[in-house]
């Protein structure tokens, strides 16, 4: 399993809002596909999938606030 973690986005940015999931739980994603879009201040930021596999669990829904470093989802790596 690979964790999808909200990375550092910049100085003074401590959290962001999940604005759009490109994939849902159970769907297959390829490495570098846009996985989730997050919004902070006047910016949207697309987080790509760190690996290919199946999206096993999503921990934050659209509209939820997430802290930097928190796990957004886990992906079951493709063997």
């Amino acid at each position, binding site marked *: 399993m690979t964790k999808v973690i909200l990375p550092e986005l*910049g*100085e003074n940015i401590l959290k962001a809002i999940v604005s759009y999931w490109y994939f849902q739980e159970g769907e297959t994603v390829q490495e570098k596909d*846009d996985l989730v879009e997050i919004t*902070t*201040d*006047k*910016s*949207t930021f697309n987080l790509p999938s760190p690996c290919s596999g199946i999206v096993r669990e999503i921990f934050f829904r659209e509209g939820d606030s997430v802290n930097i470093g928190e796990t957004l989802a886990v992906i079951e790596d493709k063997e």
Partner: protein
Amino acid sequence: MCDLGLVDFKYSWQIQHDLFNRVKDGSLHGALVICRHNPVITLGRLAKKNNILAKEEELSSMGVPVYQIERGGDVTYHGPGQITAYPIFNLQYIKKDIHYYLRQLEDVIMGMLNEFGVTGTRYRGYTGVWIKPSEAEKVTQENEHSLCKIASIGIAIKNWITFHGLSINIKKFDLAMFNLIRPCGMNIKVTCLEDIAKQDIEMDLIKKILVQKFKENFKIKAIMEQ
């Protein structure tokens, strides 16, 4: 640098996506799109539709389309009295920091305004560039809300490559169009450079200065015109 002139928003949106793909595949280092728009309303990703105050029929009869787009921020209006700039920059070559990039865009705008003797200011927590009601007046916590907005920023980033960007209100004639919306989802006043600088301003001069400020702030050696 692409100067598109006066165009429909949809066309510039497509151009941005084309240039984004070229920056992503490495065939282009970066790009700066500058244009003016025919009247249009755009909604950012988390925008509330009730921040459009005009009725759908009213917008339709005025020929003002509404687009839901992938930038951050709420609702905004674009029109021919503004200059809009869309930097397609790879932040991996600049700094992978959204906060830094937004502040740089504000610096570009404030630098441009300064060339006309106008002092733009930041309004903490509210990205964009603002004008104090009286430049002599000291902004305090109490009167912060009396600031007028002169420039808006709304961006999107994929693979650390930016698109969408900034718009600056230059001309007076379409300021009233902001009454169609609640700009940025806030009850704020908007203003324009001509009103503050008390002079007629040529758009070509604005474009030239804006490009220069981008070069200075982002340490760009050369910008080719296309």
